């Protein structure tokens, strides 16, 4: 590669002379030990102002040191101080290798600094070079092998790399997504997980309980990219550093444990609210299945559930999995769910998910009638402020609930009470569904919605006029319905005749029922 670039450089003008310079220096260093000092010039370029020079120098460095690793020209073992180099009684070979090892350490430091560089390309090349060093070091360990230690993974280098990746000041998500490709390798992933854990401990411990959004974002970006291979059976084959014997990280269970610990440490600390949402959205899909013991998340989930609002809604999903699959007992679950119902549920982004879950929670036919009635009545009351898309979910949902629980039919059909009109006995403000007197009430709200402006809503509300059919309505396809889709449905319907307004208009603000003209005029 070098010669080809060399020839290229000759053809280029003086602007790219640095290429020529670096290339010749690189060649000289590698050709002859006499020119070892030229390496200073190369590493100098790493601190250059110009991005291109830095990138080129980084590539050269990685080339040089990989070559040196291969030749075994780097000093192995505890490194003596550079000042002591002259004093010691060493051979020239040894001196050279010590010198080169020092240069190696220097350039690693510079590269790590470059990870925090402004330009993404510099970051990327630095990262790649460092990962090459990690691989080379793994192959040709720089420490004397202990017999007790069976593996020789450059943990220290990786740890510092992770530390730089998880910057506290800068958003590194782009670089982290680049880093993802290295996480495919099992050993790298394993050591990254453990170093991330340590890192979180350290950083969060340092800033006592304070929220560090940037750092936590970076951590989240890194954590969410980590995927532990799912099945136990599949063997770990993908390694950066080939090892002879089997080590801890060969076993999947170890990976899961590391993964779990990493997440738990992360979730233990206080998080910003949008981070809660982000985590909760992916929790049930990508975190819980990869944990060896998901019940450990209960602390986090119940804390999130208590926060209220959208976060509570989102935590329902995780809680549901715990209750459903891991036999978790959650006291007052329904009471809390009941208190979650407020007008905002119709306007949040996670409306579909929420209704899906509520539908599941209330699908059991063993729930007490008072509870279901309370839910139904509350939903009905809330429906007075809901937009049509929500109403189209809500009304069939209410009908389904009444179908499932025939004892709730009194809500829409109470023939026995002979006495005439009465007040609504339902207490909206009551937190406890048992005390809300919902079963004694009727769904006058649905009756109100029969006068709704949207024809589909009015039709759905009309259903309570007659005894409900046996078959439940399927609400799953309504969940994702948006207003525009609703509009489009109306627009695309084939219509034979288009009725027109009876009175022909003569002016913009002059019709038989003018309201706009009362308040505004044309000026």
């Amino acid at each position, binding site marked *: 590669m070098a010669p080809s670039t060399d020839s290229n450089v000759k053809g280029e003008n003086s602007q790219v002379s640095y290429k020529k310079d670096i290339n010749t220096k690189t060649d000289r260093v590698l050709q002859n030990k006499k020119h070892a000092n030229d390496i200073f010039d190369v590493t100098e370029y790493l601190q250059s102002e110009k991005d291109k020079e830095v990138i080129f120098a980084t590539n050269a460095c990685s080339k040089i040191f990989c070559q040196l690793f291969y030749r075994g020209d780097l000093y192995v073992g505890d490194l003596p101080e550079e000042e002591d180099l002259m004093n010691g009684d060493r051979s020239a070979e040894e001196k050279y290798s010590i010198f080169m090892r020092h240069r190696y350490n220097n350039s690693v430091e510079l590269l790590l600094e470059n990870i925090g560089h402004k330009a993404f390309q510099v970051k990327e090349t630095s990262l790649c070079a460092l990962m090459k060093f990690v691989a080379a070091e793994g192959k040709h360990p720089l420490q004397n092998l202990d017999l007790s230690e069976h593996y020789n993974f450059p943990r220290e280098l990786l740890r510092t790399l992770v530390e730089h990746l998880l910057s506290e000041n800068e958003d590194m998500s782009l670089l982290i997504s680049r880093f993802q490709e290295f996480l495919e390798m099992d050993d790298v992933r394993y050591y990254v997980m453990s170093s991330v854990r340590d890192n979180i401990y350290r950083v969060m411990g340092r800033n006592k309980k304070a929220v560090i959004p940037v750092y936590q974002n970076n951590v989240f970006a890194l954590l969410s990219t980590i995927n532990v291979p799912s099945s136990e059976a599949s063997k770990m084959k993908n390694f950066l550093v080939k090892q002879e014997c089997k080590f801890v990280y060969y076993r999947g269970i170890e990976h899961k444990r590391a993964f779990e610990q990493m997440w738990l440490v992360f979730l233990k600390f206080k998080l910003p609210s949008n981070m809660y949402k982000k985590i909760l959205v992916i929790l049930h899909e990508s975190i819980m299945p990869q944990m060896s013991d998901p019940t450990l998340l209960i602390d986090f989930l119940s804390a999130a559930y208590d926060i209220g609002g959208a976060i509570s809604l989102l935590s329902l999903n995780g809680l549901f999995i715990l209750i459903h699959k891991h036999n978790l007992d959650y006291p007052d679950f329904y009471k809390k769910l009941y208190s979650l119902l407020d007008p905002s549920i119709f306007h949040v982004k996670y409306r579909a998910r929420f209704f899906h879950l509520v539908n599941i929670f209330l699908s059991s036919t063993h729930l007490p009638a008072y509870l279901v009635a309370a839910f139904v009545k509350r939903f009905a009351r809330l429906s007075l402020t809901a937009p049509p898309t929500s109403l189209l979910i809500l009304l069939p949902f209410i009908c389904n609930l009444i179908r499932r629980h025939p004892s709730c039919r009194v809500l829409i059909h109470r023939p026995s009470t002979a006495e005439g009109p009465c007040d609504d006995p339902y207490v909206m403000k009551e937190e406890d569904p048992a005390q809300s007197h919902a079963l004694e009430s009727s769904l006058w709200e649905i009756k109100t919605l029969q006068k709704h402006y949207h024809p589909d809503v009015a039709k759905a509300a009309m259903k309570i006029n007659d005894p409900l059919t046996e078959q439940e309505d399927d609400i799953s396809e309504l969940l994702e319905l948006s207003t525009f889709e609703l*509009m489009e449905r109306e627009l695309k319907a084939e219509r034979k005749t288009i009725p027109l307004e009876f009175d022909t208009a003569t002016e913009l603000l002059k019709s038989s029922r003018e309201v706009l003209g009362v308040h505004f005029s044309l000026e």
Partner: protein
Amino acid sequence: MRQGSTSQNRGLSDKVRKSKAAPEIQKNPFEVKINRKKFDVLGRKSKHDVGLPGVSRSRAIQKRKETLLKEFRAKDKNNKFIDRRFGEYDQKITPEEKILQRFTLERQRTQDRKDMYNLNEEEELTHYGQSLAEMEKMTDVIDSDSDSEEKGLLSAELTATHFGGGGGLLRKKSAGDEDEEHKPKSRQELIEELIIKSKQEKRERQTQKEEAQELTEKLDQEWKSIQNLLAHKTPKAERKDETDKPKVLKHLRPNTEAVSEQGGEKEDDDGDEEGGEKEDDDGDEEGGEKEDDDGDEEGGEKEDDDGDEEGGEKEDDDGDEEGGEKEDDDDAEGEEEDEEGGEDADDEDADDDHCDLQSDEGSEDEDAEGAEEEQVCAEGPPAVIEEQKKAAQEAAKAELPYTFTAPESYSDLKALLQDHGSDQQCLILDRTLKCHHPSLAAGNKAKLQKLFGFLLEYVGDLATQNPPDLRTVSALIPQICGLCQMFPEAACKAVQTLLSDSGHSMEETLEVKGRAPMPDLDMLVLLKITALLFPSSDFRHPVTTPAFLYISQALTRCVVLSLEDVCKGLILCCLALEFVSLSRRFFPELLNFLLGLLHLTVSDKLCVSEILLHLIKPNELLVFYNNKHAWPVISSLLHLLCLCFRLSLIDSCLDLVKRCTSLYKDLPSFAHIFQPIRTLLLQHLPVEGYPAPIQDLHSEILDAIPEQPSQHAPLVFKKKKPIPLKLFTPKIVQILDYGKKRGNTKEEKEHERLKHKYKREFKGALREIRKDTRFLARENVYFSSFSSSE
């Protein structure tokens, strides 16, 4: 002999039929055949239980003899002798009578021939039984002269002589008296006198006509001279129809007035017309269309660049000319009046014009008068005309042409309308609509349908430009309405696309940013127009239902960041209220939004969290108004204005709430719906700081909303009709034909029935044919034996 016997038989049967009366035969058991019935069905009457075969057979034979046999005899014979002598075939007349009649006929014929040329001899003509010749001798009766009474004109004298009471006898006496006085006047003389009189009248009329002709020719000459003055052109082609005159007149008449009155304003107006006229002429003549004067009338085509269009127009006119000039003129009249309406010309002119037009075919006298008037015009000083001409040329530029090409694209329409005032834009559109009416040409429908879309786009443009030109939009409404009435489908499509586009873009911004800005003024105007064009009270409507959804979307998802947004939101609320005002349907988003707006007026934010505003809304208090701290000193006029603006917004907001309360007071959950608003108004709204009208509004709303929810009867299912028990009533099926021909469906039955009928008819026909052949064979045998025996 056998033949003889058969003939005898036949004769016998005939005799039987003829001689014996029907009842007698019917009683005769040998003649009667009784059709045996298999079953006796009670109540059924059959026509055919008793048959008389002998009678019916003889009847059939007789019929064949009269028809078939005659045809058979005449077969292969081309001619035959017909004896035309009187009564030759009539057997009722006795031979003596016959002879007598023939004799008289013969005599008559000879006499006719003889009398042909001697009129008054021998033959006497009578009237009322009296001899005409005698009557003529009395001479007082004047014979009607066909010449004098042409065109049905009956002079009093004539009618008197013909119908003047009584009849010839009565008149005789008086006539006799007269005769004594004017003896010398014979009947012949009287007639002559009469003839002379009528001739004189005729001549007078003739001369009148000629005079008129002369006058018109004169007028032509004058016209040419004027034309020269006006157009600086060689005189037009010689041909000048009478029908063209009034049109020319019409244009010139105001001119004369202008000259005589020297009125400043008038001059201007007239000048316009004249200028238009003149330039038209130019255009026409340059175009080489010498004979086509209608171009003048159609007017203003000089601005029309489209050659094809013009050509087509002219062709049309020619066609009209041939068919009915009247119609053409009426059209022109209409346009003329339009124009004058626009220019505020006086009505008298229009009336006069009208007269001219009406009279152009009826009597030519008025034309002549017109010509005289024109002469006056021609006498006017040419200098004034020159001046007028210059003024007119300038004014003509401002004048609108009468026809417009239908815009093919939006930019065309824009170019067409842009530089005109709103009135003129209306006029332009009106004219475009008129000359592209779908009944005029095949492609017009599509053009106008497209025009609606462009028009909406244009309205949107007017609304978005700065400052928005809403007056023009308002002025254009009748045209938009008219188009919509013409093409509901196209209008529906156009509005739908606009709604859909806007809704889509809003959805997209919502997905990307999570919040969207309030819709722009053009959308608000479109929604308003939608409410004007389509019924918003329909349960489901292809346009208004999406419009509802659009408003709902805007009210729930759009952010209110500034006073302008508040304003837009209030407009949307007004629209929503208008949409539901008739059907009184429930619009939750409207109330939510109003509640949200009212929250903005409140200074302490504690209450906001209490009810939880799900509307995406910043809590900054935009409409905040308080005398405590927010506006301690009204420092500048701007602040004052701002304050007034806020107050007016609060006022309209409260007014809308009030309207809502009256609209929704019948809903079962009325109290629950309005409870949040009530608590807000009651507890948090800084009412004390507001002016009195707002305070009144406030208290009115509070009065309208009850503190306690009203009572309602518990819900019950709708009462259903009980399903009736099954009863064993017989199922009645109508049977059209007895027998086994019963299809399942009505069609099948009908088909079966027809098939059956056809079969029967076919069999019957076959039988008849067989009988015919048998009859003919028998006749043949009889005839041959008869001839051989002879």
